[in-house]
């Protein structure tokens, strides 16, 4: 059974979001890391980059596939998890914790309401 923490919101494209005041922390879901299998490369967005909700801004790659990661929200990239490059296995082993990918300073906090609830995400992936 794939993990879908109750305190997070989700996207149709398998990202998770943790709202921290006006900061959104973003990563990929357990379902996503399982589909990809062993991650061998990650490309994170540049600091200061402005992103729009739904815009591809990162890449996660496994032996067989390269997958675009879409920003769930609009705003500015204020932090990326640079340490991940040295420890890519965390994306597989701790996708909701240590393996967050980037943080966005929200330009429109109302967008959080457009995201999927844990129950909606569970339905999406047929859990």
């Amino acid at each position: 059974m794939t993990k879908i923490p109750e305190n997070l919101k989700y996207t149709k494209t398998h990202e998770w979001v943790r709202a921290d005041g006006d900061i959104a922390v973003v990563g990929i879901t357990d379902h996503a890391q399982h589909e990809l299998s062993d991650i061998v490369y990650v490309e994170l967005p540049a600091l200061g980059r402005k992103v729009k909700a739904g815009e591809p801004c990162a890449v996660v790659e496994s032996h067989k596939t390269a997958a675009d990661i879409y920003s769930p929200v609009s705003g500015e990239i204020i932090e990326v998890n640079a340490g991940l490059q040295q420890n890519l296995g965390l994306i597989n082993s701790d996708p909701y914790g240590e393996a967050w990918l980037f943080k966005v300073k929200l330009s429109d906090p109302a967008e959080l309401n457009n995201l999927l609830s844990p129950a909606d995400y569970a339905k999406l992936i047929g859990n």
Partner: protein
Amino acid sequence: MSNSHSENGTAQRQVVLKRTPLYEVHCSYGARIIEFAGWQMPVQYSSIQEEHLAVRSSAGLFDISHMGQLNVSGDGAAEFLNYLLTNDINKLAVGDAQYSLMCNERGGVIDDLYVYRIEPKKFLIIVNASRAKADLRHFFQQLNKHPAGKKTTIEFIAENAGAVAVQGALVPTFINFALDGVAAGGACVKKPDELKRNQIAYFVANNKKYWVARTGYTGEDGFEVFAKGADIVKVWKSINEVGAEYSLRPAGLGARDTLRLEACYPLYGNELDENTTPIEAGLGYFLCFEKDFIGAEPLKRQKLEGVRKKSIAFKMLEKSPVPRHNCAIFNENNDAIGIVTSGTHSPMLNVGIGLGYVSPQWSAIGTKLKIDIRGKQFWAEIVKKPFYKNPNLIK
């Protein structure tokens, strides 16, 4: 997240996919199934990384039942095969095997394959799954043309056959316990572990019979077992059970690809195709010019005049996305000089590696390259083949 290139065989496909006799076994072991050359095959059971490292450190078990199997026999068989294939079949005593290539009249590769002399006038040939149809067409066309063809019989036996590969440093330690039976043909050995590399023998047990060859596609020691479809499941289960004590893991096509790439073995469709010669692919060693074979003339000419492209192995010099088939290759002056034919992340070296073709003047070891991966360029370097060599592998 999206998949920019994924490899599912979905239910919408009209094509009926084939399954090997081991399909249910794969499913019961939790394998992820993908489509390969019209077959439903396991790409991984746990993870490509884990399965790859298992083969390098202990043992892995692969289903290779999808590969084409032919028997070519008769008084004319050796002469006929020596005309179709590039390597010298007369080097093979009964029980010997060799890697060989089959070329078209331009010297381009129709397929690369393994030939096993199982009886004085009978050969087992293992061909790529993706080329079985093309190979058979060629074989039968030539059978009608060549005089030795009248005394040669070709039988495609893959329909009712299966095969597995068990590869890894620890395999010789347990293979005799996994494959029982009395030796009854091929090389003069009593037990499988007595086979030398590139030898094959026939074993008969009370509930199964099979050919065992000390060959493989991983760069490790190991064996390949060819049996009737009904027996191959018993063979797989026996190897898996005995091997478990030695940390053997079932391994899928994902690991098969990363392993052969570390060993710099070509994959038909990537490094080899009908417009690429064995010389360009760096396989000149397997051409015997002392005999006439299809493609010999243009290949002799190419040996004299030089090649248009040269096979190279490269290693990424920086952390980069995975280099993949069809990525463009540039030199340090930004000239386009070639193309990547296969690429992956190497589990042993923990860096991107690949094979490709470049203009001969840029093919020296140590040459710095730039690989274009999804629009960005990353530095790489041409290295000596293979990327990985097991120091203990007895040749």
